[in-house]
């Protein structure tokens, strides 16, 4: 009988776990809505990063592979949107989707040969990808305007409606990032998602069960690229200005901190991490020159006491709940 109790608790556990973060995110957005433009900007960056990290989580979390070059696809999205919208007058939304397609194609072309590599070698190859695209954004001045960057990128909008204020844009970013998490959750809880998780668990076992490893790795890489591209485009529209530095190595490091802090491989981890890593330094502004030290100290403490990330803590909670019910 106990087993019956254990399995029947599963659906309610999942519902509880998905409603709470949504409420928290909406509450945060509401706070942003009544705050200054500065805080709105910080929150906007947080949700853009949440989209980027949710995508990266497909490849690094679910599938367990390393990519240090995902910023390349954000650059394709960002520069693509900036160029198409400023120079050619495209609709922002159309440009967003067009650059996503472009990034997807690029991910297939790059991923097909590189994803044969594993571990550190894959990390190096993807790192090179990020650096190459970074160099291109600096050197190909005819296309990217080099260090000067692209300014005057119009805000997000569709069919004549433009989101003129930052607050309106924040609302859209929150909605898009929640959709992003929703898609990730659906994909993870399926045959497809299980195949990705099997690769992270043991490649040889996955293969012995008929999982086409190369194919699933590539799909995960492409999905991560699509999210990264969308995040890159959204950044360009949100800030109105992009330069090579935006999509540099810092972006990669930031996103790793977010993934591990929030909980890599979990559904809400990337978003939780993105929000915390973005907001945390701002809450410590009062500490002046000690700000960076305090910030990194908090990051380290979180990683010591929640090594599986903050989202991992909810799993602990769920499991004790199940155990209590088993005893009852």
């Amino acid at each position, binding site marked *: 009988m106990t087993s019956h109790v254990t399995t029947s608790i599963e659906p309610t556990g999942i519902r509880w776990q998905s409603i709470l973060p949504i409420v928290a995110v909406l509450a945060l957005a509401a706070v942003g809505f009544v705050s200054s433009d500065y805080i709105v900007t910080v929150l906007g960056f947080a949700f853009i990063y949440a989209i980027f990290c949710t995508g990266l989580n497909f490849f690094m979390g679910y599938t367990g592979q390393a990519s240090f070059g995902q910023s390349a696809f954000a650059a394709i999205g960002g520069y693509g949107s900036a160029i198409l919208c400023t120079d050619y007058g495209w609709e922002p939304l159309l440009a967003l989707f067009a650059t996503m397609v472009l990034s997807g194609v690029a991910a297939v072309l790059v991923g097909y040969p590189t994803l044969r590599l594993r571990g550190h070698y894959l990390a190096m190859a993807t790192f090179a990808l990020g650096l190459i695209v970074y160099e291109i954004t600096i050197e190909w001045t005819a296309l990217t305007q080099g260090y000067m960057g692209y300014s005057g990128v119009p805000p997000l909008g569709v069919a004549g409606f433009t989101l003129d204020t930052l607050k309106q844009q924040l609302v859209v970013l929150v909605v898009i990032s929640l959709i992003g998490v929703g898609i990730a959750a659906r994909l993870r809880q399926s*045959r497809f998602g299980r*195949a990705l998780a099997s690769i992270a668990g043991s490649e040889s*076992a996955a*293969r*012995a069960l008929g999982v086409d490893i190369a194919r699933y790795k590539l799909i995960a890489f492409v999905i991560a690229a699509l999210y990264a591209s969308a995040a890159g485009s959204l950044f360009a529209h949100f800030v109105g200005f992009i330069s090579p530095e935006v999509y540099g190595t810092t972006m990669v490091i930031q996103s790793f901190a977010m993934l591990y802090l929030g909980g890599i491989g979990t559904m809400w981890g990337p978003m939780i991490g993105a929000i915390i890593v973005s907001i945390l330094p701002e809450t410590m502004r009062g500490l002046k020159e000690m700000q960076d030290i305090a910030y990194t100290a908090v990051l380290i403490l979180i990683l010591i006491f929640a090594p599986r990330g903050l989202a991992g803590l909810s799993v602990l909670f769920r499991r004790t709940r199940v155990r209590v019910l088993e005893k009852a």
Partner: protein
Amino acid sequence: MALLSVREETMRFGGLFANQSISFDVEEGELLAVIGPNGAGKTTLFNVISGFFPPTSGSIHFDGEEITGKSSHHVASAGLVRTYQLVQLFKQLTVAENVEIGSHRVTRGGVFSALFRPEWMRQQEKSVTEGARDLLRFVGLEHQADMMADTLPYGRQRLLEVARALAAKPRLLLLDEPAAGLNTQETEALAEVITRIHQAGTTIILIEHDMSLIMKIAQRIVVLDFGKKIAEGTPDEIKAHPDVIAAYLGGTETVDA
């Protein structure tokens, strides 16, 4: 026609013949054991059959089709599923999810069906969940369904690996030393599970060192020694076979071994 037929299979690593001209057939519904001293080439044989590396020469046919040199996931998709000598679980996933992944071969759907959840997909998910629960009950792990796989005791991890392989509804199941590291009690539980799988109609090839287990459940035995097949027959024939006795109890070969 035999379900699996191995013909003149040779696997050479540099100067070492891990397998040398091995031939044998496995009939549908049979339980065949492969035995031999350490280093006899048993696991290499499994690796070649299951497509983990192509043989140096020779051929392997499964269900009438040549599978020589095909990649391991193709071979698995065709219904030839293996387990490992060292347990290879998906440690960070729950026991139930481990088994659910096993159904990959017998289910369908990719990104789009996962996203849009058509009716057939929801039905399939339901049957995957239920199937996993049934298999866990079958091997006696139903109470551990929500535990993380790596928190199971070793003996139970073995059973989980078998349950996961069964979720793939294999036509031929290759078990590589499933009783390795198990105590007597656990081995008995495992023997019972293997017998029940066999009785349910699954063809099995079993590599094993535990002789009492082999003699109890195998219908036919292939004996390897130094990469060659030295005997093949029923348990009683093998027990009395002079070459087998020499290989196990020490003949001339033990001098250089």
